């Protein structure tokens, strides 16, 4: 027997009695199901989980998770979660957010959380639309998007979500899809074991305001040709027939047909998620912004780096070790004092 035995948890333990109020057919249901399936297997006592969210459809998430949960205000979940994690590093804190919440109103908090490498798991539900406010274009909507507030099409250039995270030198950056349940669960587990900020962009469908947001990637007949599943140590190969790959050409990536023009598997890039240079993962993240390239799914980057709340608490411990625990009476009398008799 091990010294401590954890109670066996099941998916049911993480379901609440609250009525789920997402639209029928929403991709969020699939994400909720995946998270509820993964949490029991992480070996973490239920009371240690905290789900923090901002505002938006995705941010209703905590109400449906029977853990500690905090539905905060628009864009601020990363900052609330950072404060919580600094104060209580032993907690397992997950942030549920969306493209508007994390990249528009909360963009500043998102990049600074990633820059600091705070030990949070961030699930960014990207449906390329504002759902809760009923259908305005978002910072990930494509140029020309016709939405409630852009009847003639949006003229905004969208963020590439992963490029943005990598620009902030996030230490764990991954992407999965609401309907790819097995892949999503694997990716969630990878994020759960990462030390530091673990950022997952989850491509999610909004069947009311942006139906088919990702269907060019997710439809059965095209998905293998349009996506590339990244695996550490494996060459970048994709296509229904596994006949295409990615290789370097100068400082650019290029798609090659295996066997054509003498191209073999040996010429392809072997995926290295631990590459310390974020530039490599950044190149990968640019693929989906480049015509003819597949959209990469899986873990783009997973590197070790000092974790913010650990460093902060270690600094406190180091000062205490050096100076001894502070004495209030001494502190109040610090500096020059004099006695009046």
């Amino acid at each position, binding site marked *: 027997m091990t010294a401590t035995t954890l109670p066996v948890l099941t998916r049911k333990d993480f379901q609440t009695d609250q009525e789920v109020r997402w639209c029928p057919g929403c991709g969020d249901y699939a994400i909720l199901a995946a998270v509820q399936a993964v949490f029991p297997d992480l070996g973490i006592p239920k009371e*240690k989980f905290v789900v923090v969210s901002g505002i938006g459809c995705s941010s209703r998430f905590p109400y449906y998770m029977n853990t500690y949960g905090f539905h905060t205000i628009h864009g601020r979940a990363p900052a609330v979660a950072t*404060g919580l994690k600094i104060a*209580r590093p032993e907690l397992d804190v997950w942030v549920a957010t969306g493209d508007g919440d994390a990249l528009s109103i909360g963009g500043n908090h998102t990049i*600074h959380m990633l820059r600091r490498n705070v030990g949070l798991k961030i699930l960014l539900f990207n449906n390329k639309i504002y759902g809760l406010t009923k259908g305005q274009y978002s910072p990930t909507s494509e140029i020309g998007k016709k939405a409630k507030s852009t009847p003639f099409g949006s003229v905004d250039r969208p963020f590439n979500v992963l490029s943005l995270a990598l620009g902030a030198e996030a230490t764990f950056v991954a992407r999965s899809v609401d309907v790819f349940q097995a892949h999503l669960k694997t990716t969630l587990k990878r994020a759960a074991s990462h030390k530091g900020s673990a950022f997952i962009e989850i491509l999610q469908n909004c069947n009311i305001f942006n139906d088919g947001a990702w269907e060019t990637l997710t439809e059965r007949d095209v998905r293998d040709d349009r996506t590339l599943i990244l695996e550490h140590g494996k060459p970048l190969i994709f296509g229904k027939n596994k006949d295409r790959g990615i290789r370097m050409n100068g400082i650019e990536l290029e798609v090659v047909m295996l066997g054509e023009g003498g191209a073999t598997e040996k010429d392809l890039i072997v995926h290295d998620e631990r590459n310390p240079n974020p530039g490599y993962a950044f190149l990968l993240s640019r693929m989906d912004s480049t015509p003819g390239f597949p959209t990469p799914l899986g873990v783009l980057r997973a590197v070790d780096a000092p974790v913010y709340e650990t460093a902060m608490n270690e600094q406190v411990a180091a000062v205490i070790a050096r100076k001894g625990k502070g004495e209030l009476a001494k502190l109040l009398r610090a*500096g020059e004092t004099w006695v009046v008799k």
Partner: protein
Amino acid sequence: MATLEAVPKPQETLAHAVIRFCGDSGDGMQITGAQFTSTAALFGNDLATFPDFPAEIRAPAGTLPGVSGFQVNFSSSDVFTPGDSVDVLVAMNPAALKTNVADLKPGGILIVNLDDFGETDLKKAQCKTNPLEDHTLDGYRLFQVELTKLTRAALRDLGLDAKSMDRCKNFFALGMCYWLYSRPMEPTHKWLDMKFKTKPILAEANKLAMRAGYAYCDATEAFQVRYEVPPAKLEPGTYRNISGNSALALGFVAAAAKSGLTLFQGSYPITPASDILHELSGFKEFGVLTFQAEDEIAAMTSVIGAAYGGALAMTTTSGPGMALKTEAMGLAIATELPMVIVDVQRGGPSTGLPTKTEQADLMQALFGRNSEAPIPVLAPATPGDCFWIAIEASRIALKYMIPVIVLSDGYLANGSEPWKVPEVSDLPDFPVRFRTDPVGFFPYLRDPQTLARPWAVPGTPGLEHRIGGLEKEETTGNVNYEPLNHERMVRLRAAKVDAIVQDVPDVIPAGDPDGDLLLVAWGSTYGAITEALRSQRDKGVRVGHVHLRHLNPLPRNLGDVLKRYRKVVVPEMNMGQLLWVLRAKYLIDAQGFNKIQGKPFKVSEVEAMIQEAVR
């Protein structure tokens, strides 16, 4: 035949004196003033200080916007303000002279650095004529001292470059003032040794300059008399000099110790509040966690996260930052988590006067959030009181599970006074008990006396629950949009703030308990009003003074006290914000007395107001 031995010069005893050092912001005037202050404090004087510096870190040298000043009032009896006008003005250049000379008393001592009154210096200060020659200074005792040349002469053997030597001229001036007021130089020697531990040559240079200034006064004919200000009779105890910002920092460390919680500060740098962050970030041996956030909103929301996790959480800011925190403060109110928000007020609106003082955020504190979002508000009266306010605000926040606002201001933040150091055992204990029992637990079940909800922190088995900004069902805390539930919750949140009145002591007016005039005030105006009240009562005016530390909820007996006086005047450094509250709440015809100049009230201004009011 004159003897070569120095004849001690005659000494006059004074009850109090006010010195102002002013010069370019690179001239070290703040350090000079602070040194004179700590020497006076160690000597046993009561004192009050007023540092006044520009918002620009280094405006072009010698120009009017670059002038920095430090005023100290030291006395053999108790003082409450830095003084309306000054007895000694040290002006390091024409710009400093021009911007400060109006505050020098007629016949006052004016020391200028003659070396910095050249043609270019005068031009930079936009002086058309040389004030040293145009007779505008005839009403003062003017001492034109070649501070730069004399300092260089004193330091010539040290082998320093000219720039380094010139940086010691403020200590030459300090030495002169030490001589003038018969002060020992040892405390500053000690300070210099510590400050320049790794550069002993600079310690030596400043000591030499200071001693040269002292000797200069002793030796030259210019100064015929020196002064003495005997120690004040303060309440027995151990004292230190403290500024409002330092006192707040210490108060929060004390509150954490007394509540048994970890102190978490989430702040974004902003003048004049940043010093609290600087100070607390140095107290790691007390387990203090300081987080310099990416912006004011993150500062506020990180505090909410830390409070949710069970820390004693606080943030510090000034008016513009407070505005940014507004939405998050609403979340703190809705989730009923304990925390303290410190607003060190400055002149506004917008960026306004970053380094100047004002009291114009009262309405923002009371009402500056969407919808019905009442919040307790406290205000310290003096720099030393900031310590006690920090403890009181923390205690209320934890007892009632509620965010609390503290309104300090730039004058309290940077001003200082001797502070009687309390015994740790004299501080209130308020240990916190987190909810751990799952039986009968509901996130919004209330304590019948305080209306506080339980503090159930993540990590506690069996208490998993969700909170957030959406309206909650009474008791269960589940999301609820029902009309009657919403009204009940709005009223409950207000009732909780009102319930705090049980922790607010009744007011007892200073001065007359009834009579012709009552002054009702709050915050940093305490000193000027207290001194004016004293002088006017000596003249037979029947005047009382209520100084509110609790601005929401107001003390229970305030309405009755207001009725005991023929007239009520509310002095404020704003356009009449407390006045507005009092008129609305008590339906009285109170009058405002307002100053909005980025500067505190002078005692004489309050005195004149009292005379006018009772005429």
